């Protein structure tokens, strides 16, 4: 059979959204690949230039709808870096807790989507079943299940309810048991990335006070990425409990200045990799320029490299393990 190009997308079960991966196959083996993105480009960086700093949090929530808080959090950190603003201690801890809850919810969504990719629909239902518990926790603390709009420049929107720690401990205890089942289901199948955890290397908020081991795998294949995510979920559970335990009382938010003169950037460990916001203010109450660095956008660039020489079925496994979220990729 001669080589031929196959479109995987824009409407294809593999893509989890609207993008197109063109692969060139020789029989079952992939010779070349070429991602085509931009179907969901909404001009975030331009829109953010006409909105006030605080109001942009609503937008950054929608960058990735399964990982809203982590993105808004990164934006708030960048703005605070530009403003030289210090967040109260309790605000930092609340950010850590909400961040990690969101991270687990996002990873479970990834696990749910990864199951059908590999032909295992049961994993979808199981992971969504567990995700429901974490969405409930997020609803308890933020009031919403999606697009929570929780972090604020200078802190968080509201305090956690009084008995939040009790619910968290209950859910996490249940989840730790269930995660073992998920691992059993997935590790029946075995399918170079150096993983760096920015929470350790470039710590922000209350992460310096947390005691955790970042999840690292030496291999760079899909299986390693899977294991890293599962390990991260366990780490996140530990961090949530620690943060709730150590959380000080006091204010959780300060009033930020309205205008910024200057620039700032911060990186965070997003659910999918390294997120970076670069915010410039020119003395106005709106950003002069916002640059969003999306981990998926950068990873998708490596798609041809990862694809070559693999089988057609591997496309799904590899792209699934990157956890493509088109919202943040196309901005």
């Amino acid at each position, binding site marked *: 059979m001669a080589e031929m190009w196959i479109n995987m997308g824009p409407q294809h079960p593999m893509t989890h959204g609207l993008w197109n991966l063109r692969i060139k196959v020789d029989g079952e083996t992939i010779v070349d690949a070429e991602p085509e*993105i*931009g179907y969901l*480009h909404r*001009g975030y*960086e*331009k*829109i953010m*230039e*006409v*909105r*006030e700093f605080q109001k942009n949090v609503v937008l950054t929530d929608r960058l990735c709808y399964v990982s809203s808080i982590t993105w808004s959090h990164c934006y708030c950190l960048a703005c605070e*870096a530009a403003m030289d603003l210090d967040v109260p201690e309790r605000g930092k801890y609340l950010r850590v807790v909400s961040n990690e809850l969101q991270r687990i919810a996002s990873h479970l969504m990834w696990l749910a989507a990864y199951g059908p990719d590999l032909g295992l629909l049961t994993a979808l239902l199981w992971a969504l079943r567990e995700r429901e518990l974490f969405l409930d926790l997020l609803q308890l603390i933020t009031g919403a299940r999606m697009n929570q709009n929780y972090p604020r420049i200078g802190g968080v929107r509201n305090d956690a309810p009084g008995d939040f720690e009790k619910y968290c401990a209950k859910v996490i205890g249940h989840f730790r048991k269930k995660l073992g089942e998920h691992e059993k289901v997935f590790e029946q199948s075995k399918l170079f990335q*150096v993983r*760096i955890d920015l929470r350790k*290397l*470039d710590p922000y908020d209350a992460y310096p006070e947390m005691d955790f081991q970042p999840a690292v795998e030496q291999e760079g294949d899909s299986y390693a990425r899977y294991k890293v995510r599962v390990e991260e979920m366990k780490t996140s559970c530990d961090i949530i409990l620690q943060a709730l335990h150590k959380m000080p009382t006091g204010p959780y938010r300060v009033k930020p200045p309205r205008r910024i003169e200057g620039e*700032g*950037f911060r*990186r965070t460990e997003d659910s999918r990799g*390294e997120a*970076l916001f*670069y915010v*410039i203010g020119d003395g*106005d*109450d*709106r950003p*002069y*320029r916002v*640059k969003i*660095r999306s981990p998926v*956008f*950068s990873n*998708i*660039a*490596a798609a041809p490299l990862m694809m070559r020489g693999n089988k057609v079925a591997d496309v799904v496994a590899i792209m699934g393990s990157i956890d493509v979220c088109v919202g943040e990729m*196309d*901005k």
Partner: protein
Amino acid sequence: MGIEGEVLAGLKDRFGEPSFRSLAIVRDRVVKIVIDRKDLVAVCTFLKSKFDMAHLSSIAAVDWRDHFESVYHLTSWSRNFMVQINAWIPHDDPHIDSVVPLWNGANVHEREAYDLMGIIYDGHPNLTRILLPKDFEFFPLRKDFPQEVDRQYVSRRKIGGG
């Protein structure tokens, strides 16, 4: 002297003080340097070889109306510090050398900067539009590309601004 001072001293030694528009320590383990576009590849090569800047986090393009800036955020995992390089580009001649030979990951970031800001990266293997349609004629992130402010909820006082 921490890693920040070491980097600044190394850069001054190698290129001389006058070739930098500014050199500054932004915060702990973050250095910001402002250079002209002609020095970009030399500075990047030096940083990569001397300080093991293995990772290019992002490339941002900024339109300052009188000039463009191409902003590179470099990371060294082994030394654990970041360098932000702002390279000045004249507004009437938006060309700058590509850093794809140094960091393969720069490929999509430079394409994005070209797509949205119209800065041409000389030496890029495939400098085409990545997010916008292939036949799009404008560079929307430039300040002279109008925002449709009347159709959005924006800050009332600033509608005149553009």
